[in-house]
């Protein structure tokens, strides 16, 4: 008995679906949320809306009702020195409708908070953790907002524009042997597992 080889007719026509969405959904959203949703014109294929954080939940619920069943991505952008400084970018896809929509949520530096969407789309849970880890944007009501890519005791949010590329090392450009102190070489007598973390005796950490 040979295994059953199945082929299916793939979903096609993303470009037409895009056009249709621009005609139908976007004016509808703009009408429903006149104060908090704004269309950002783009020459590229994915339509984008700017949504204020207060209205994000309401817009997201509406999108979910309209068939956006996949939250492809949640990412952050730091637009230093612009205010509001941060932006959280959501990419939604409707399958099989093939609609695609990008929401850009501006976030103030003073109170970097956005409501979480992980109860609506489970895929948001860990992507939001990553945004918190790398940008320091908090997601309110998130069940487990902890660091995901960096060690738990890390200080700072590296993808912020004011975080130096070399991290801790960059703040202390002394002679070569000292410069590399964030990843200070292990010395005899050091407790296990301490290497690579800020050294208290060198004034490491923030």
């Amino acid at each position, binding site marked *: 008995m040979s295994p059953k080889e*199945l082929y299916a007719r793939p979903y096609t026509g993303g470009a037409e679906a895009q056009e249709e969405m621009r005609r139908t959904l976007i004016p509808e959203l703009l009408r429903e949320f006149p104060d908090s949703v704004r269309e950002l014109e783009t*020459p590229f294929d994915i339509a984008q809306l700017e949504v204020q954080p207060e209205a994000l939940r309401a817009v997201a619920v509406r999108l979910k009702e309209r068939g956006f069943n996949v939250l492809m991505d949640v990412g952050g952008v730091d637009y230093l020195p612009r205010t509001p400084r941060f932006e959280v970018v959501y990419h939604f896809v409707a399958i099989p409708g093939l609609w695609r929509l990008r929401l850009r949520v501006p976030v103030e530096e003073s109170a970097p908070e956005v409501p979480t969407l992980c109860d609506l789309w489970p895929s948001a849970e860990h992507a939001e953790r990553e945004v918190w880890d790398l940008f320091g944007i908090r997601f309110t009501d998130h069940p487990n907002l902890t660091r995901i890519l960096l060690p738990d005791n890390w200080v700072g949010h590296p993808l912020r524009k004011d975080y130096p590329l070399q991290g801790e090392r960059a703040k202390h450009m002394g002679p070569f042997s000292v410069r590399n102190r964030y990843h200070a070489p292990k010395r005899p007598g050091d407790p296990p597992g301490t290497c690579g973390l800020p050294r208290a005796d060198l004034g490491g950490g923030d």
Partner: protein
Amino acid sequence: MSRIVQSGQYQLNVDDLKIAGSGDRMTLSIGPHHPSTHGVLRVILEIEGERIIKATPEVGFLHTGIEKNAEHLTWTQAITVLDRMDYLAPLSNNLGYVLAVEKLLGIEPPPRGRTIRILLTELQRIASHAIWLGTTALDIGSQSVLMYAFHIRELILDLFEEASGARMNPSYFRVGGLAEDVPEGFEEKVRAFLDEMPKRLKEIRTILDKNPIWLDRLKGVGVIDADRALALGVTGPNLRASGVPYDVRKAYPYAGYDEYEFDVPVGENGDSYDRYLVRVLEMMESHRICRQALERLEPGPVNVDDRKIVLPPKEELRHSMEALIHHFKLVSYGFDVPAGEVYQALESPRGEIGFYVVSNGKNKPWRVRVRGPAFYHVFALPAMMEGALLADMVAVIASADPVFGEVDR
């Protein structure tokens, strides 16, 4: 603390942590250095007997700061670091990034450049699936498949080495085209490989398709249904194995894929075996695309005719002052890209990889955000593992095909 537990005729010295809670529930930490995790994944399992009650993946052990590094490099240099994310399919990374930048610039390489891109990306897909096949079979217990599968990949890497000079991480696609044209005789070698590959794949399938161990360990293991997969952001072969025919190459054609004929294999149960079958069939579809690409390959330029973006040919540097200036400018400063945001999705061997590129009009990217498909697949593992046996964990992780360079970036 530990205590002595009677187990059959043995008295075992068991760590308290492992028998905490209800008495028979055990917490088990697997990884980050473990042969079955395909890299540096740590899974914290709660098990009762042999059954997995809860699995919590922990990632970040390969966090490289690639996105941060890319912000400090010029548009061309960033290709090099982005290469090293999904290290089983670096050319897919290259393609996604250069397509995004080309969208911002509003350029498109000439037909030969586009065809070579598709040809090499599809070869890359075959190589990536071959590694997946080999390592999965190794995890399940068949070492010979690894040897056959790595041989397929080896033949493809020879082709890459010939074209770009590097076996892995070639950085071969550039903004506006390719680093250079493929060498003479390349097409014949690809043709020879394409003649050879189906035979080699058939050998592997002869070993696996009816192998009772293979079937027992994969069938019905790690099942995930379509709705759950979509909600968790699963894409690519893993999603198609659950019966959703979503393929970015068909849904949102890029790089000229709409001109090629190929089918989309799907599964029906969404188990590990379907994921195997979908990948193996996909290799043959890629083979079909490569054949069509070879037929289309006609002599001509591979790069756009724009000296502000593409390096001038080496010979011109000897006698043309202008070419020298262009060369110097491109190598030292790079080129400016108009301000804007663009998201380029493409079908990498693992699923939809997305490049969200933000430009502020300067010679360096302001932000390159990468949506790695494997990141979402890793966090779909708990859904696939729930209620499975401990030994099935190996099969589930292997069949989901995570690549940690892409998960952790």
